[in-house]
């Protein structure tokens, strides 16, 4: 491959001082490529999501190494020689965090309708709420479908997805097709309660999460507009969810419906539900009363993941760096950015935040970050609705997804399957699925000339 011509291009792009004057007007903002502020890592390889905050000291990186190990390596069946890593299951979705967050990236539904879901899980609940206002678990299967089990325990069954193509076209005649997912569950422990609510959730990318935790509550709540007082068609509500450590309702920030208040609880919840590993936050195995075999299975300790291991995995999840943007001064990218803002995408995909002081995380405090999310819930319309409430989030609401790093998804994970269930094949389809509060922006996108639609995609690819 002849690539030697490129360095010249980069030196021009990368150094403001040498950049030629722009003909198309707008130019990049200073520091715009530093999506994660001083934590930003310059990497465009498969490892782009897997590096630590660049401003972290070497001493602190030890905890990152340990957390990485327990994120990446398999948990094994107890009892095992490797006592620190045993206690898998009894029921589980995966043996390691990285099974679904491959290379710290994003999961995807399989293309083959006969292949079971692995890195997309199904949340289950019945109408009503639990004691803390959260979803009420399905009596037999609990809060999520766990397709795997250790020997001697019956797995809960597999889920499959097939798609129905829905053709459409832009006003200028260019055609597209959206795929509507249809889920089937081969339930292994008998029928679910009639009226069970099911919601698919893709394993999300792990980058920049600590920076989102470092944004002050005031800054997030300031953007709420539950009754659309300013009349722009966009409301935005915060989720308030149960914080098991504080024993109180707290602002929800993480997860597709902002149903987790902190990365510590998110981490412990994933250990508990997805891998079957108990921690100090969730001390009992995730077995329902209907699952005697699950309750009788051997455990790998009480809890199975020590406080230190849980803390280090949470530290790791908190400090994964955000990769820098590419091509920020490229005229096509700048045109795409202009459309992104003019269409109103930035009203929910907030371009810039300034983090506050995050106790225990000096590298994440006081940073200017560009996550492209407001962390609030928005009604995204009928077509995307899962009809499953989650604390304050109703069945049509989703948390605005952060967009930073999204342009490297194909490099890291080899796909561009977007949205909460991976139904969208690439950026254009993802935009076209936006409804509800985003309907106006979507229609404005559809009405753009083809080259401007392409420019918007270039902008997203540069993130």
């Amino acid at each position, binding site marked *: 491959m002849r690539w030697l011509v490129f360095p010249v*291009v980069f030196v021009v792009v990368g150094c403001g001082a040498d950049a030629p004057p722009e003909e198309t007007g707008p130019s990049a903002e200073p520091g715009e490529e530093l999506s994660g502020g001083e934590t930003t890592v310059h990497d465009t*390889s498969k490892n782009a999501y897997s590096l630590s905050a660049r401003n972290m000291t070497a001493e602190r990186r*030890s905890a990152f190494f340990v957390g990485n190990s327990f994120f990446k390596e398999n948990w094994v069946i107890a009892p095992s020689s490797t*006592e620190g890593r045993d206690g898998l299951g009894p029921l589980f979705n995966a043996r390691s965090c990285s099974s679904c967050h491959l290379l710290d990236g994003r999961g995807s539904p399989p293309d083959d309708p006969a292949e079971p879901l692995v890195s997309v899980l199904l949340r289950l609940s019945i109408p009503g709420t639990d004691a803390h206002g959260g979803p009420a678990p399905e009596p037999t299967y609990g809060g999520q479908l766990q397709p795997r089990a250790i020997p001697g325990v019956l797995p809960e069954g597999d889920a499959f997805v097939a798609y129905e193509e829905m053709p459409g076209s832009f006003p200028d005649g260019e055609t597209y097709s959206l795929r509507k997912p249809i889920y089937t569950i081969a339930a292994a422990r008998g029928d679910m309660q009639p009226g069970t609510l099911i919601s698919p959730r893709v394993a999300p990318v792990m980058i920049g999460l600590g920076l989102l935790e470092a944004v002050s509550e005031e800054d997030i709540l300031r953007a709420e507009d539950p009754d659309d007082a300013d009349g722009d068609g966009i409301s935005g509500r915060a989720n308030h969810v149960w914080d098991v450590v504080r024993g109180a309702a707290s602002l929800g920030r993480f997860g597709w419906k902002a149903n987790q208040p902190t990365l510590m609880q998110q981490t412990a919840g994933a250990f508990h539900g997805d891998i079957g590993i108990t921690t100090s936050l969730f001390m009992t195995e995730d077995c329902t009363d209907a699952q005697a075999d699950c309750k009788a299975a051997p455990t790998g300790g009480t809890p199975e993941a020590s406080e230190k291991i849980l803390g280090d995995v949470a530290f790791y999840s908190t400090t994964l760096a955000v990769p820098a943007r590419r*091509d920020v001064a490229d005229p096509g990218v700048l045109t795409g950015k202009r459309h992104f803002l003019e269409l109103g995408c930035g009203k929910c995909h907030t371009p810039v935040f300034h983090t506050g002081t995050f106790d225990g995380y000096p590298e994440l405090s006081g940073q200017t970050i560009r996550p492209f999310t407001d962390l609030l819930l928005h009604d995204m319309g009928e077509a995307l609705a899962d009809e499953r409430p989650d604390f304050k989030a109703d069945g049509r609401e989703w948390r605005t997804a952060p967009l930073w790093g999204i342009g490297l998804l194909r490099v890291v994970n080899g796909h561009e399957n977007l949205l909460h269930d991976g139904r969208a094949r690439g950026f254009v389809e993802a935009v076209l699925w936006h409804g509800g509060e985003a309907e106006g922006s979507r229609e404005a996108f559809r009405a753009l000339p083809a080259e401007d639609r392409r420019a918007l995609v270039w902008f997203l690819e540069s993130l």
Partner: protein
Amino acid sequence: MTKPTKRTLQSVALASAVAGLLTGCGSDPVTNGAKPLSEDAPPVIAAYANLVHGSYVEAIDETASLNASLAQFVAEPTEARFKAAREAWLLARDPYGQTEAFRFYGGPIDDDDGPEGRINAWPMDEAHVDYVAGEPGAGIINDAMTYPTIDETTIAELNENPGEKDISTGYHAIEFLLWGQDTNADGPGQRPYTDYVVDMGTAANQERRGQYLLAAGKLLLQDLSSVSAEWAPEGGAYRASFVALAPEEAVRRILLGIGSLSGAELAGERMQVAYDTKEQEDEHSCFSDNTHKDILNNALGIQNVYLGRRGQVDLPGIDDLVRARDAALDARLQKEMQESIEAIKAIGEPFDQAILGDDTAPGRQKVKTAIEALRKQTATINEVAKLFGIQLNIEE
């Protein structure tokens, strides 16, 4: 409207080829009047390819000897033959440990479909393979209903469930079958050789256990051979493409391999984790207590790459390129690499005893010293990359 000057990431190869040059704003490679890499790096790159190939060949030879030992033992299990098989396994680990310096840049060993996971994955799902404490009927070996035949094909398939890896193959599977679970505070596993004595021996399914042992050995040899073939001087596809890369990119991969092994993998994953958790068996060769050798061989592998050295043969190495540009930096890195090796040797064996106690315990202090030495050399490897104008993202 102008089309972007370059479509972002038209290909990963392109992206990584230029990644090293992306951020060098205003900091042109410091060459101190030395030649550009394109002039003096090609012999070093070719020598590296020879080093890689030769190292895998050595790993293959030792694994073939191991397999011969396993075959003799399974044919007629005796205590002496069991001991010989264990010795052969220990000998086979040494050369493989040195090849790990060739990982972490998506080469044949660990690209998307590379066999690294089947060769060296850890931790083992012991109960997935054979009986464990309190579970006499556990594992593939004891489940003839589900797994009527045990051969290299069946165990390879078991390791390849989509998105999930049941670790049931490779060096550590063989190690588990030779030593058994290590539940001893002060010694390796104590599996009796009679586990393989058909009909008369200990545990059930002795014949199937022997079949598993042989199948794991055969699969390991196959996997090592497939990697080695990619690097062969004649007809090695990856080797051909590697030596044809732009020198900056080939050197970047070489440095990424040793830098990643030195820092995140060896100092971090393999030492810091055990140091921090004090988990006795949180170590790669936990059944045989051979981890001290694993660590040492990794460090020797890094040094081999830097010096361009295999055994007694000194080929052109990265050290020559550094010396031509910054002799002091070369001297410092050589010294640091030697210090890491000495610090690792000083830990003694077994590693799983050294990590115990409080932070003033001599063993723990020695482990900590070795970790720090490795991290220091990692930072210096990063300096070497900067000297060539290459951006390396490694965890120091």
